[in-house]
């Protein structure tokens, strides 16, 4: 097999993919946007910080340590490009930028392990300073030893809601309340699927125990009404409707918000991979076979960047995708059957999590018109609805062209899902028919100076 194999990402999937390639005698190029390996979940703290693995990663400390050690052992046997962004993918080449230098690398096989970010549903006032994603709140603590505020409300749903709440409590942060939009009944009905991995379920229950012991107020079945505050000073209160319907208000100076995760699929999109609407996840996902082969020859997808199944699944999927790449390159590989079987178990557990912590699509139609949907450019739900009503735009990219929702600097990462729900509700069509925003290069903003440099390079 030709040696030009590129792995994007150094989270659980990327590291295990690289490891499988190295074991087989290849020398992959591993590209990492971060300063240090680990991805988001096993993100390493900066050099010189002293907290233990146990403090940083809790029940996952052994896994984090194992992944970091594996990567350390790989470093001399791979070409590692850290602090390097893949900003575009064209036919068999990735386009990179690092600091002020730009380059293109060709590949025979590309394994994209791009990870996930928080899935967001807007709430009135979420643009006020002091509102962060749940993942962001976790990064502040894990990577920098900071709480996002002195009185923190955590709101949304998903395993991260309780994990971050428990981590904040353990670190000594003041958690004012946890508002979960999911109900206890939803949790209970998901139990059979969650029992696919009893140890993981047990860890989840232990997190609840941490919160109970710290006497953190946890409310389930809530509907977020408003984050109040001021444009100058940021958030001051969170108001929700409790499950009973009663309004309830809590004072705070920071809010962590998130509704489980969404894969970072822009690179798969730029690589030309086919997507399909996943009814269970209620989102567009790149199509892959069991091992991570995309619809594009030579492009493989693995981990939460392709489908949310969690870090443990991502480790196995990364390896499996690397095996698939090598097999397609004519190499003899083994071990896939056991990995596929393990992934089946994680798929079942992931389905349980989706059922326990469902995406609250219905909230989109209930957002007051003045709610900002696009934080980048402060575009409201009312404006998006007006566009649907007046132009008849029922497709995401068309509505984006008229409203600019999804055109801002985050490129729709944090508004696209909710925006699609707003469009679907306003147009009375299923959200699947709204489609998805097409990925655009560069996947993240590049400094102007670099764009100039690229043109120079093109004329050489």
């Amino acid at each position, binding site marked *: 097999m030709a040696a030009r194999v590129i792995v994007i990402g150094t989270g659980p999937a990327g590291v295990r993919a690289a490891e499988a390639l190295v074991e087989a005698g290849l020398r992959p190029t591993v590209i990492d946007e971060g300063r240090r390996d680990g991805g988001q979940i096993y993100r390493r703290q900066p050099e010189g910080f002293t907290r233990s693995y146990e*403090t940083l990663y809790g029940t996952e400390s052994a896994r984090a340590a194992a992944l970091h050690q594996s990567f350390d052992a790989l470093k001399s046997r791979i070409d590692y490009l850290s602090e390097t962004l893949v900003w575009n993918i064209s036919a068999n080449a990735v386009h990179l930028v690092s600091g002020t230098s730009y380059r293109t690398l060709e590949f025979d096989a590309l394994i994209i392990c791009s990870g996930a*970010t928080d899935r967001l549903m807007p709430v009135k006032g979420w643009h006020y300073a002091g509102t962060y*994603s749940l*993942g962001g709140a976790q990064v502040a603590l894990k990577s920098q030893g900071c709480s996002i505020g002195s009185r923190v409300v955590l709101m949304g749903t998903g395993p991260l809601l309780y994990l971050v709440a428990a981590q904040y409590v353990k670190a000594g942060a003041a958690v004012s309340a946890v508002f979960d939009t999911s109900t206890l009944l939803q949790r209970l009905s998901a139990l059979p699927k969650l029992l696919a991995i009893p140890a993981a379920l047990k860890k989840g229950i232990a997190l609840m125990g941490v919160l109970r012991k710290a006497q953190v107020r946890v409310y389930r079945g809530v509907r977020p009404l408003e984050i109040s505050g001021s444009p100058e000073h*940021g958030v001051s209160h969170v108001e929700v409707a409790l499950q009973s319907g009663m309004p309830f208000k809590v004072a705070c100076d920071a809010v962590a918000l998130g509704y489980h995760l969404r894969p970072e699929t822009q690179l798969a999109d730029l690589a030309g991979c086919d997507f399909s609407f996943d009814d269970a996840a209620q989102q567009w996902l790149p199509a892959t076979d069991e091992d991570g082969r995309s619809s594009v020859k030579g492009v493989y997808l693995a981990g939460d960047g392709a489908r949310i199944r969690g870090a443990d699944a991502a480790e196995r999927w990364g390896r499996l995708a690397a095996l698939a790449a090598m097999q397609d390159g004519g190499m003899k590989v083994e071990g896939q059957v056991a990995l596929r079987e393990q992934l089946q178990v994680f798929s079942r557990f992931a389905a349980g999590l989706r059922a326990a912590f469902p995406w609250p699509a219905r909230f989109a139609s209930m957002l007051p018109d003045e709610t900002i949907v696009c*934080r980048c*450019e402060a575009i409201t739900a009312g404006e998006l609805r007006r566009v649907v009503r007046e132009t008849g735009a029922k497709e995401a990219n068309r509505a984006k062209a008229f409203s600019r929702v999804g055109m801002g600097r985050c490129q729709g990462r944090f508004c696209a899902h909710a925006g699609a729900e707003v469009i679907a509700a306003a147009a009375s069509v299923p959200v699947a028919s709204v489609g998805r925003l097409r990925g655009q290069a560069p996947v993240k903003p590049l400094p102007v100076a670099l764009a100039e440099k690229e043109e120079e390079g093109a004329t050489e």
Partner: protein
Amino acid sequence: MSGRFVRLAETERKTFVITVDGVARQAAEGDTLMVALLTGMRALRDSEFGDGRRAGFCLMGACQDCWVWTADGDRLRACTTPAVAGMSIVTQLASAGEGVWPRG
């Protein structure tokens, strides 16, 4: 001015000085620029769309809400940029005067 972020751990690190809106402030070794700024103040920039001050959102380089400008007019993403001694950062473009013009 009180900070937005609260330091809970790793508080024994050496500190150094950065300049923020013309005022000298302390940062700690290993701080991202975002943390160095938000442990001493409550926001990073003004929204260009008139909805007030912003203080970042995702902390992992995805949302681009934490952009700040250097006194020379270069744009930095505060959550992924390490704070470095001697940096001069502008969070209030309107009051920074004519010398500062965001380039990108």
